[in-house]
């Protein structure tokens, strides 16, 4: 009797469940060195505004403990570290060692030291005790996680009561005409830019595909509530190209 192995999406392709982590790792190993410059080129610099908005809405203050999951090259960690002060702490966590290395070097070069910890961890099995963080963020990382429901449960677990989760992620464009232009850009221009700048067309083709496979705004909000969050809401940015979901643990 033949038994079919469970599969999961990797962009528009189905791959065996265990394969996705390796394949995502391959993508980010490949783009790590050019990740920041590609982000600027791809979003025309708007990703900085999305991240700034996220930081502003976090309401973070000195003394708080923050988890920047899938923190990559440390954009959010850098700003949170400035705000939590010497009494607070920011943990930059990512499954990809290459990204953490790039992020750590970048932050040290920017003079951000003393209140930042770096760790390599899987979002589905966070290596932190229950009720550890006042704030957890995952920016442009959740769509690469194999089991998103499990990751959300883990994020809920490590938040302190009263803590907040912020998910910044590509989402579903709300304006139909703009959606058509965005699709054309994502599948025709973006991979070519990836080839020109990072010499890596396939990785950027995956990025475009993975965005389309990611749950839309309402679905993700429902997933957060199912994972245990007591309240969830979202804010569309740039016509829904990106959505900021926020969930609270009471």
């Amino acid at each position: 009797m033949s038994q079919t192995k469970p599969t999961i999406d990797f962009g528009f392709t189905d791959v065996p469940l265990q394969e996705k982590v390796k394949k995502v790792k391959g993508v980010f190993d490949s783009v790590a060195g050019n990740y920041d410059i590609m982000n600027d080129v791809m979003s025309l610099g708007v990703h900085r505004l999305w991240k700034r908005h996220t930081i502003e809405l976090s309401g973070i203050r000195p003394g708080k403990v923050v988890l920047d999951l899938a923190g990559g090259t440390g954009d959010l960690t850098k700003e949170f570290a400035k705000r939590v002060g010497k009494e607070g702490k920011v943990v930059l966590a990512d499954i990809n060692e290459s990204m953490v290395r790039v992020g750590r070097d970048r932050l040290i070069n920017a003079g951000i030291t003393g209140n930042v910890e770096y760790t390599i961890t899987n979002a589905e099995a966070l290596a932190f005790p229950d009720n550890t963080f006042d704030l957890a963020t995952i920016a442009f990382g959740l769509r690469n996680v194999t089991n998103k429901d499990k990751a959300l449960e883990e994020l809920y677990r490590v938040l302190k009561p009263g803590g907040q989760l912020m998910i910044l992620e590509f989402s579903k464009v709300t304006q139909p005409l703009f959606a058509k232009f965005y699709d054309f850009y994502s599948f025709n221009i973006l991979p070519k830019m990836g080839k020109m700048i990072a010499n890596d067309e396939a990785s950027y083709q995956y990025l475009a595909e993975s965005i389309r496979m990611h749950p839309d705004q309402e679905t993700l909000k429902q997933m957060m509530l199912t994972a245990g969050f007591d309240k969830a809401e979202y804010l569309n940015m740039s016509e829904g190209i990106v959505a900021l979901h926020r969930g609270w643990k009471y």
Partner: protein
Amino acid sequence: MNTSTNHTSLPLLSLSKTIEVALNTAMRLDDEQGKAFTPLEDKVISLTLTPIESPLYLIVTNTRISVQTTLQGEADAGIQTTLIDFASLPIQRQLPHAKLSGDTQLAQDFINALCTLDIDWEEQLSHYTGDLIAFKIGHGIRSFFNAQQGVKDTVSQTLKEFLQFEIEAVPTQSQVKRFCHEVDDTTTQTNALEARINTLLTPS
């Protein structure tokens, strides 16, 4: 659809970023590198710049200031002033009509620290232009402001003399003093007269 009830408008976001960049640049260029802010470390100041209603939150850490539009919990101290007064702080070196709340000493210390920021613009400019050109530009700007002050003083004096002596529309300071003195004298005499009348009316 947007289900969020709490989001920051783009202009406010821009203002917070602008103030953050301006303050940190000033601290970096300050002769003392913003040392005056050290006692304020890990404190949060709420800054309301009327006519903008939403406050900005200034977080002081490690001699740098982060600015954001929302805050978990309450700020340690609050400052309410006008956007114009705050913008002219580098020139005026004071916030005369600021309303302080919360830890008012902390708020005052923050204002004092802002006022002590001292940037040697000529020195900064000389890195790009060389000493001579930087001095000439600095000298030109100082001369301009001195001349501007001179014109302002002359116009003010001429207007004062015209109003006081030519058309006699407003009194001079000595006239006002004399008038006040005469009012005081009249009040004293009236009081004395009232007392005398009361004495005469009182049956002995």
